[in-house]
């Protein structure tokens, strides 16, 4: 078991190095640099900097240095535990990402729980009642969820919420709490905002997971040991819950690791549309604006999260399935 984890941990540094290179390369790929897009943005706003100011800025940001130098500067400071400064926001990336990351995780976990609570029972029901009306109903509902482009869903729901119920659900906080330090009141305020995005995000996942559970459960229910359990005189529901389900949700658990990057992209759009203070929009903005250090750092953070997520899910799997545990040992 420990060997197993150690083995997994061993490759993490290498992965991270690769990630850092890739991340940096990705940000450098588009033409121009931060200033080009900054100037462009100003021009779009009808104003402009004169050459003098541009030169000054380029010097200040060290954008006049060669790429590889910029990369090593970045990685160097990262190794020192310094996440660097955002070119656009002109403040430390740590500050910027900090709470947003927290909220992102909150949102992610929230929708994850929502998803599982809905998906697993559905999966079980539609597996045990394969090809029944219930099965069809759930299947269709699920897929409608999966198939709905969530940015569309988000905007429509926002309007309906406002138009029908007079509640406005932009952002995760009411203005008075947006800046406030954490308190119960703030938490409550968060809860009163977070439900809609949570659903919008969860809806898509539900379908996938329910489908996985259903498929696996079907396979498992076909296996002799299920038959044997029946022959032992085990009640059906007990049987389903005790044996195959445990096997069936294993793959679901193993998807945990990929959940973060998925939600970063999926959640991103929702966050943009509903203007949620999560990491997604920050990243998108940083990428479009070529705010390289910020973008790079965020990408890296998410890669780390993914690596951790995968690790955790593998361990969970091992816990769930003795076979893996033993092999690993």
């Amino acid at each position, binding site marked *: 078991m420990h060997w197993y984890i150690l083995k997994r941990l061993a490759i993490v540094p290498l992965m991270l190095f690769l990630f850092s290179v890739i991340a940096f390369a990705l940000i450098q790929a588009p033409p121009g640099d931060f200033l*080009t897009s900054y*100037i462009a943005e*100003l021009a779009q706003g009808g104003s402009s900097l*004169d050459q003098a100011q541009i030169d000054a800025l380029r010097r*200040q940001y060290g954008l006049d240095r060669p790429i590889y130098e910029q990369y090593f500067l970045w990685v160097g400071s990262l190794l020192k535990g310094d996440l660097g400064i955002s070119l656009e926001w002109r403040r430390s990336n740590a500050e910027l990402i900090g709470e947003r990351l927290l909220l992102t995780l909150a949102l992610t976990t929230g929708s994850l729980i929502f998803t599982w609570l809905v998906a697993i029972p559905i999966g079980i029901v539609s597996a045990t009642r394969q090809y029944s009306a219930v099965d069809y109903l759930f299947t269709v509902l699920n897929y409608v969820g999966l198939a709905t482009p969530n940015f569309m869903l988000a905007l429509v729901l926002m309007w309906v919420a406002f138009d029908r119920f007079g509640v*406005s659900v932009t952002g995760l906080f009411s*203005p008075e709490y947006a800046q406030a330090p954490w308190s119960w009141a703030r938490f409550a305020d968060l809860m009163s905002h977070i439900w809609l995005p949570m659903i919008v995000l969860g809806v898509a996942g539900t379908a996938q997971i329910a489908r996985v559970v259903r498929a696996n459960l079907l396979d498992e229910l076909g296996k002799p040991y299920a038959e044997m359990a029946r022959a032992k005189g085990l009640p059906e529901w007990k049987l389903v819950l005790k044996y195959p389900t445990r096997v069936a949700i294993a793959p679901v658990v193993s998807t945990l690791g990929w959940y973060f990057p998925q939600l970063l992209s999926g959640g991103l759009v929702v966050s943009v549309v509903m*203007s*949620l203070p999560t990491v997604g929009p920050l990243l998108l903005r940083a990428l479009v604006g070529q705010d390289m250090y910020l973008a790079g750092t965020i990408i890296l953070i998410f890669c780390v999260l993914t690596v951790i997520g995968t690790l955790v899910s593998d361990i969970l799997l091992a816990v769930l399935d003795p076979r893996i545990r033993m092999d690993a040992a």
Partner: protein
Amino acid sequence: MIEVSTAASTGPGRRLRRPAAWLGGALAALLALGTALAQPYQEAPMLAELVAAGELPPVEERLPEEPLVIEPFEGIGTYGGVIRRGFTGPGDHNNYTRWAYDSLLRFSVDGSEIVPHIIRAWEPSEDFHTWTLHLRPGMKWSDGHPFTADALLFYYEAVLQNEELTPSVPVWIANHDGTLAAMRAIDDYTVEVEFDFPYTLFPMELTFRDGGDRTLAAHLPGHYLAQFHPDYGDPEEIARMVSEAGLNDWTQLFMQKGIITDNPERPSTAAWVPYRSSVSDQVFTLRRNPYYFAVDPAGNQLPYVDEIQFRFFADVEALNFAAVAGELDMQDRHIQLTNYPVLVENAERSGYRVITWPTFGGNDAALWVNQQYTIDPELGELLANRDFRIALSIGIDREEIREAAFLGLGEIRQPVAAPWHPYYPGDEYAFQHTEFDPERANEILDGLGLQRGPNGMRTLPSGAPLRLEISVVPAFGPWPDVAQLIASDFADLGLTTDVQVRERTAHFTMRDANELIMEIWNEDTSGFPFTGNPKIDPRSDPATIFAVESRTWYATDGERGREPTPEIARIVEIIEEAKTVGTDRQIELAQELNRLVADQLYGIGTVGLTPMIQGVVVVNANLANVPDLVANDWPLRTPGDARPETFFYR
């Protein structure tokens, strides 16, 4: 001013035609110049408390001897309240700049002339070489520190004269030979700036030096900033702060500390000052400046409203949603013209009203044609042919564009100054080549030897395929639509035209590389052709695409790039001369320039005077003193030029 209000009440889509507004502006200026008032001053309750508590000197001591008097649009207001606005993050820095309009001099409400602000009065020397600027004795920074000539001189010495902060001298304060002009203090409240040439536009340049675009303003709190500048402060201490903040060098630190929106500590002279928050926060809050130097005619210290809250929105559509939901009290920026119907339909229930501020002349979606396209010489030659451009111009169904892209608002026109503006060249030019006439367009094209091929599309005289491209940035709502409408009109003329919607960075990179054939951009500088970065000035950077090669030519004194045609060269001459002559001559020159614009069609105008750019204004139903009409343009810092200090809640 009065005219402004009356003329305003004629619904959207109207045409503005008010030469009187010109005087009105002057009138307002005169009023504003009025000297100290007899009656004692009043202040906001929240300040009165502080005074009572002894934490703040009485209002008389806080105000300068000669406070600026601002005439409210509707009437004397009452104190209190919060104005909620939306912004889109640090990139939206100018959202603050426009609101604060914290410049040494300001434009009048109709944008027609320059009026006193921090600078009480100014006069040039006979030869326009030297300008004397008079500050307000007794005026204070927001931290109570006296505001004196040092404010300007610190900027001059610490910033302009410092190579690290200012690698090359900015044009606006450069001598003819490119060196830095001379600045000296006559006394605490009088500053003199001397140039080596007659520089009549200097005051106007001063109106732009308010720290817009996240730069340093021309008046800086030296008493605070000195500590971050190695010439004044302690180097070790600065080094420590730099490394602590994880910055590269002191210049970054200095900028960060010196730019008000990044540093709430920095003392300011605006009506509201950042309160424990910066432009990179989720909510950027401004609180009233207890030392603000302006009062209303009744002697009430401005501003009326206590607090401004800028709320961050990651997405413009979400911001519009908030506006519809009545969560914003005064929003002009980022409101989408396309959403106008929704806004109006929900105004009642969400308790706001919608007013429109048309753009300040020029054009809101002009088709700029590259005059120096080199990638395909034959095509380049064609683009440079005036008749071809005329054919294009009359080949565009502008009514269609006005209806589809601008909800039927605005006026079909060439990119010239606004009709009420002294620079207006007259209708014959404003509407030249704007009537839709495909027949004639086709005749011209045929005349140019552009034969139609078997598929009905025209080829170049040489028989090579003729392929036009319109590059457009989804910057302002309808531009991509305008591009597509134009493209289909051109297709009807037998001109194959691709529309390329590009990310702005890509577009700009291509523009600088002179790879673009045509672009959609606006002309919002027709009111200010001689200062800043006029779209029509080939030397402007970034400018429009019509003469990129000549920009290089001018920048390198003719070493590289391409020599401009006589017409383009004339543009530069006009601008250069205008900087050195009096108002009347400037008007002549400007009109000549506008005529040239309408004749040459470097930028083919479609529709102008629409509220496309920050002109659809959502205002809380109870918010008073918001003008129905103001000149709307970046140099005027709209809505700053609407004097938000005077807004108040009924």
